[in-house]
């Protein structure tokens, strides 16, 4: 339970955190996944392996040919938002690919998708964009025990390099395998101290089990918690912004990987944690 004054609203977040501590000049780095990855790599924060960066139509044709040799990969618009334009592909023995939802994809369709990304169809401001093709993450067994489809992720919000609040987002049938709260994923609160999971929130209801698999979600301890926190701090230090949300996943073989950094992290994390962000922010200031 929190008092009204402890809740961070959009107006307050924008005025007191984003406008004041996140200079516009720092936005390009986090708004472009390729630039983010470069900055994170320099700070020695692990990220998924980049297979290819596509920045021209000629490059797109070449990429399609080379990608035939990869067993699976993910295509993302560098400046996409909200998961738009993200394509997960798995190669088929008879040639071509299929997506996790079972849709088949031939070379022309993959080329078209890359073309759309280059033209900025999915991108902030609809400007021209680049496509990032990277290795597909294999979720750690910890997540597969809870829900096998899709990839769960961990969001940590930091202010001046100090973690404020954390949550885990687990896909559901309703979210179609996506770890997006607005699309129906469940949020689970994470203790900053030890990475222990608390209650979950699914469609506005407090739950302790996954809605589809009935697996218990509370009281587990997330593996690699100290590494996850260390990577979050290192990423926050490497960014020219003071108030950020970082998204991490845990790969079965590679351990923690950082997917992206957000300059305007959402406020729903307060609902998941049943606590307002304001006291934590004031504690740091």
């Amino acid at each position: 339970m929190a008092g009204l004054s402890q809740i961070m609203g959009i107006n307050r977040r924008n005025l007191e955190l984003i406008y004041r501590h996140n200079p516009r000049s720092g936005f390009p780095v986090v708004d472009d996944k390729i630039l983010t990855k470069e900055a994170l790599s320099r700070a020695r924060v692990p990220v998924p392996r980049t297979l290819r960066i596509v920045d021209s139509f000629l490059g797109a044709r070449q990429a399609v040919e080379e990608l035939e040799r990869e067993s699976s990969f993910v295509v993302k618009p560098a400046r996409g938002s909200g998961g738009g334009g993200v394509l997960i592909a798995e190669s088929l023995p008879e040639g071509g690919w299929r997506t996790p939802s079972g849709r088949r994809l031939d070379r022309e369709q993959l080329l078209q998708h890359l073309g759309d990304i280059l033209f900025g169809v999915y991108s902030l401001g609809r400007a021209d964009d680049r496509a990032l093709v990277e290795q597909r993450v294999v979720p750690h067994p910890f997540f597969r025990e809870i829900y096998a489809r899709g990839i769960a992720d961990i969001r940590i919000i930091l202010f001046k390099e100090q973690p404020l609040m954390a949550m885990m987002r687990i896909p559901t049938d309703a979210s179609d395998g996506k770890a997006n709260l607005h699309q129906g994923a469940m949020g689970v609160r994470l203790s900053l101290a030890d990475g222990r999971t608390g209650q979950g929130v699914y469609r506005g209801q407090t739950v302790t089990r996954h809605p589809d698999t009935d697996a218990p979600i509370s009281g587990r301890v997330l593996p690699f918690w100290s590494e996850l926190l260390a990577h979050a701090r290192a990423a926050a230090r490497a960014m020219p912004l003071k108030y950020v949300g970082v998204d991490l996943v845990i790969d079965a073989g590679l351990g923690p990987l950082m997917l992206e950094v957000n300059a305007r992290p959402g406020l729903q994390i307060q609902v998941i944690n049943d606590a307002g962000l304001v006291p934590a922010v004031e504690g740091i200031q």
Partner: protein
Amino acid sequence: MSRKGSLRLTIAVLLSLMAALVLYKVLVLGYTYPNLIPQASYSVQLSMSFTGIGEDLSVRTFLPVSDETQSIADELASAPALSFRREQTPLYVIGEWSRYNAEGPFQVLYSYSAQVRPARYELDPGLRIPDHYPKGFNQYLAASEAIQLDHPLLRELSARVRDPEHRARATLQAIYDYVSALGGRPFKGTTDAVTAAKLGEASCNGKSRLFIALARNNGIPARLVGGLILSPGTKRTSHQWLEAYVAGHWVPFDGLNSHFAELPDNYLALYRGDEALFTHSPNIGFDYRFSIQRRIVPNDRLAGFLGGHAFNLYQALSSFRRVNISLNLLKFLLMIPFGVLVVVVARNVIGLTTFGTFLPALMAVASRETGLVAGVAGFLIILAVTALVRIPLNKLGVLHTPKLAILMVAAILTMLGLTVLADIVRIDALASVGAVTLFPIAILTITAERISLSLEEDGWKKTGLTMFWTLLVMTVAYLMMESVALQALILAFPELFLGVVALNLWIGHWTGLRLLELLRFRSLYSGQRKE
């Protein structure tokens, strides 16, 4: 000084400056509200078209004249190759356009601006119907072809509404109640008094004739009035109401639109008596329409008043005119900050999401000439067309920007098509829809594309909700900008803009929870999370 402190100081300075200027004008210069209230003025254009077939040709219609309730100005007639004659009688003025051996198409444009004052009569309940009237009133008591008095049905009805004490007001009230209760009919054409009574429903002229028959049968002189209900848009419908002679006054009644001894400020009278609005030679393919625009104009006092005082926008009007900013455009511009303010409140205080930041305000501006309904309809039509056209484009696999360009072509053609269609089938409302959307078509198309994308990404529910909020905010912005009182105030007190800026500054540094966030985060403070 802290950031917050300087903001507050700025707001305080702006508000004090505004208050000081307003008070100075009110207290020292004597600005008073009645002086400032502007009036609605309508500019009306009657357009008549017909084709001569080589024979003599004439077209006659009634022209409005100024009297105690309406003032007509700026009359302008344009009728190439036709001769014009103006004929005046005590009851009306007729304009006649004619030509000998006329061949080919002709067009007559007759335009004027009209201001109408609302009329309202208090009828003394004790007033009795006189037994005798001066001789000139016989025509208003006698039967005519369409106002039958001796028909048994009308005799019976007349007896039913009769007041035993012959009081004028009670009799008229009974007639009015009876006629008002009859069903309305939108159809055009003439209905006589007996037919209206038999059918139990009638259009304006049928109801009015029936009213007149019952009044005359009860000894109250009454006559038809023909004219226009002034409302923005294009129309072919004229209107008929009536006047009854009570205590030396011709008192208006309209049984169709529920006006008892009163008329609003948009009833323009063209003639009195049971007449047809147009008379013309046969077989000339006669057609007409009225295009009406509503404008808010300073009332006569305001012009004189503001012109004579300092510190208001009326003073600067001549400079605006020199650079081609008309008063109408000026008011347009002046009202935009208020429409935009509505959007700011909707987004930052309430927390509504709309398509496009200022699109709702922009759409409201675009709808001002033709009305809100046309604006919303235009928006929805563009949306539907865009959604349809993008289906094959997506199937073909067309890239974003060229796709947008094609959608825009489709939107433009739709709007032009609507306008042409409106002209052919003569649905006037349709023409307004076309007209309203021509202005912001590019913004509309881009928004429509974004809405279609949102439909694909977020589904019907979320898109529909955003759509609903967009239209709601647009409506509120429209009503705000249409406010005559606000328009008058801003002309007289342009310093109110300081207040608008102050309000935006205040909202701009307000860190409270938006109304919808109270809902979103209710589990955090209510302690009533559902288990």
